């Protein structure tokens, strides 16, 4: 069986960044990508708005990917396309399939950069007819930007996150009539910039606190029933109204795609839907690391790549057996948070904590405490669920930590 120092699974912006950085540390790696091109989801995101942090300019998705891919090729890193990993084992052997055969290799370390899949109608259980014409926003984006087919003429979009907003504009440019966007929350989860440039500029109405409660149409979608929702997000009966459309796009969230991770027996976090990690992005199996959308969902690709960089550093530490303490201190949070990463820390280094809050919060204090002691207090004028927050805990503060780190919000 072939031996490799490090195998990177996934050639999107996370995996590419990790592989590039590994090469810079002089670590031989092999990158496996299931598609026939590198770049991942970015290849279909032809709009602008990528790279402001990493490249200090505004790029389209494909050109952001191209920057990474050309650096990757310049460094002569080994990769295989059309190569789907079907099995990951806890002993770090990997089984993958490509047009040359079914292969098994042994890795000394592994970087999971698997990306995300989209929530579907079945996941959010929209009742109604078994109609054709309901797609996830990403599928419609792929049909339009890769294959050249606009899947709808009168389109309704559920979910006002950035992908939903961007598809509202994209479908409009492709001559579809986008009749509206509904959002179950009382606020949009998209960037203000996208709300203005994708909806307001095209007079597309946004229905807040509203959701689709039925899809109608035997054969093609004919109409949808919308309802207002109460504060528990339950539809309020009597508020139903119908809109005629032939297509519904769902932009109702991404889920880290982790079939092989789960099957390997790696511990998962039900909140992120990705693997649990320590501060080195290492999963419950030593030597297997995770980053990018496969770990938790990112809004900005620059931070995806940055995570790839950081994971490469951890792989280097791991391969060179640089000590890590035996401590495993849990990072917890109160009910204001969707999640906090990493799930555990070991006190040997400064830590960058990443988190999302459950609802928009204004003028609050973010408190980081350990047992009874507050070790950090940060005033925050605004915290939004759509925005991944990051704070670094420097070493002097780390020293104070006892058997738990806890994030809380106080008014």
């Amino acid at each position, binding site marked *: 069986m072939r031996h490799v120092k490090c195998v990177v699974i996934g050639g999107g912006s996370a995996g590419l960044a990790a592989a590039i950085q590994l090469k810079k540390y002089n670590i031989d790696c092999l990158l496996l990508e*299931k598609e026939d091109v590198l770049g991942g989801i970015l290849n279909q995101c032809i709009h602008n708005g990528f790279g402001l942090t990493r490249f200090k300019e505004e790029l389209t998705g494909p050109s952001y990917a191209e920057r990474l891919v050309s650096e990757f090729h310049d460094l002569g890193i080994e990769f295989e396309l*059309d190569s*789907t990993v*079907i099995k990951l084992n806890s002993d770090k052997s990997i*089984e993958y*399939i*490509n*047009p*040359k*055969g*079914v292969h098994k290799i042994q890795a000394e370390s592994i970087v999971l950069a698997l990306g995300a*899949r*989209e929530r*579907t*109608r*079945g*996941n959010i*259980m929209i*009742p*109604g*007819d*078994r109609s*054709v*014409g309901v797609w*996830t926003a*990403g*599928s419609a984006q*792929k*049909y339009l930007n*890769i*294959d*050249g*087919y*606009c*899947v*709808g*003429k*009168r389109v309704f979009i559920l979910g006002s996150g950035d992908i939903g907003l961007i598809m509202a504009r994209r479908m409009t440019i492709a001559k579809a009539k986008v009749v509206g966007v509904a959002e179950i929350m009382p606020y949009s989860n998209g960037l203000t910039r996208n709300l203005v440039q994708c909806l307001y500029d095209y007079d597309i109405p946004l229905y807040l606190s509203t959701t689709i*409660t*039925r899809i109608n149409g*035997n*054969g*093609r979608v004919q109409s949808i029933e919308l309802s207002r929702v109460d504060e528990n997000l339950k539809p309020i009966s009597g508020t139903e109204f119908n809109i005629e459309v*032939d*297509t519904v796009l769902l932009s109702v969230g991404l889920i880290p*795609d982790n*079939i092989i991770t789960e099957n390997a027996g790696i511990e998962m976090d*039900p909140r992120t839907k990705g693997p649990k990690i320590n501060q080195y992005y290492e999963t419950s199996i030593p030597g297997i690391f995770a980053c990018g959308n496969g770990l938790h969902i990112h809004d900005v690709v620059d931070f995806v790549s940055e995570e790839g960089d950081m994971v490469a550093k951890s792989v280097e530490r791991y391969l060179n057996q640089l000590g890590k303490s035996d401590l495993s201190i849990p990072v917890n949070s109160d009910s204001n948070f969707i999640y906090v990463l990493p799930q555990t820390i070991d006190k040997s280094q400064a830590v960058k904590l990443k988190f999302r809050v459950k609802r928009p919060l204004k003028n609050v204090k973010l408190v980081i405490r350990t047992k009874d002691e507050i070790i950090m207090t940060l005033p925050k004028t605004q915290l939004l669920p759509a925005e991944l927050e990051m704070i670094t805990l420097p070493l002097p503060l780390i020293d104070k930590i006892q058997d738990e780190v806890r994030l809380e919000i106080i008014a």
Partner: protein
Amino acid sequence: MYDIIIIGSGIIGSMLAYDLSRFNVSVCVLEKNVEIMNEVSSSNSGLVHAGYDPEDGTLKAQLNLIGAKRYPQIAKDLNVDYKQVGSLLVSNSMDEHEALLKYAQRATQRKIDVKYIQQDEIRRMEPNISDSVLEALFFPTTAIITPWQMGFACMNYAVLNGVKLFRQTKVIGIDKNENYTVHTTQGVFESKCVINCTGLNGVDVAKYQDPNSEHQLEFRKGEYQVSDIRDESYLNHVIYPMPSKLGKGVLALKTIEGNLMFGPTSYVIDNRYDFSTTVNGLNEVDSKISQIIKPLAKNRMIRQFAGVRPGSITKDFIIENKDGFINVIGIDSPGLASAPGISEYVIESFLKKDFELESKMNLVDFKWKKHLSSNERNELIKDDSRYGRIVCVCETISEKEIMNAIHLPVGARSIKGVKRITRPGSGRCQGGFCESEVVRILARELNVDMKDIPYDNDVFLTPLGGHDETR
């Protein structure tokens, strides 16, 4: 001119085609849809029931037993999945004790294996059984199949052995002179004998032949939820609640592929083509299932669907021969389990009287291609690298397997057909990743534009599909 025309290619039509293709008669099958096995036979529980619950003296009781007996051999001959998982009929209250004993007794009379078991043993067999379950009957012979796989395999065998299948051919009228003239949307067909197995349209087609036919159907919808859990140990058997006058009730099972499936509900509907899911129906599935097993996390659900049962108001199958026009209608549950029994019954009771049925020589074998193991795949890749280009990651399906589905004797013509035959789109992402690639392969293999590939009957990628002039 055919000897026999079969109208409808659900499990009944497919099984009849399979059985008849081995005799020296000319047979054609007329199907209105673009794909076979796409109505009642595709949206059900996929169970080959042991056969204890139909009332004594009914065709249902008689033919379920024959069906259950024939299936293992058919599955073996066609290489399709048939898994004898066994079932538990559970009771949650001592009030149901009498009924439980009644079923045990009936099973014994019908020579169906059955064992009475109590709490400790139930829990040993099913760790996730609900705490309220008190006692149960264990039926080791209950089996699961993938209904469309069974039907597709039967029809492919039949077509390889001389049966003619006409799809997108809807029967709209029937005349009888010396022979039967069957009018369809694709012209006329003639035969000596016609078998009407048109499921939801059974009575309408029966009336084409006899306008005075008094049969009546009642349509009952059943809703389901499917989860992506593939945890081998979550559920080991099919779990039935106690039957009621509404049917077998909301049950829990693990499909051949390992997904958990809960349902169906049962209530009468007006529109027989109403395959919609409803809030009430899905909630009912949730609440009923929680009486028999411990609940699953909501976010594991990947799909909801509904099926419609075309039941006769007489509560039994209607199988009759009216002057060479054979009605096989009112086939609700256990229609799938009974299909081989129904087919045998039609042949033995009617066709053998009208035709001199002789077994054909030189039959061509047909083996269903099951999911490839890694070793099998590795071997196949040596001859065709497309076995190594994975299109559907959730289910590990390659480009070549999708091409094979399109080039079967009864090949896929739609996205739905490909999904039924090889499963891309059935997994977690529900086609999110692979659907466009499936469309691309269909378009290439059938030599048409992507927008002209149907999802299902007459519905396409773009709203106008094949009629779209803008591209």
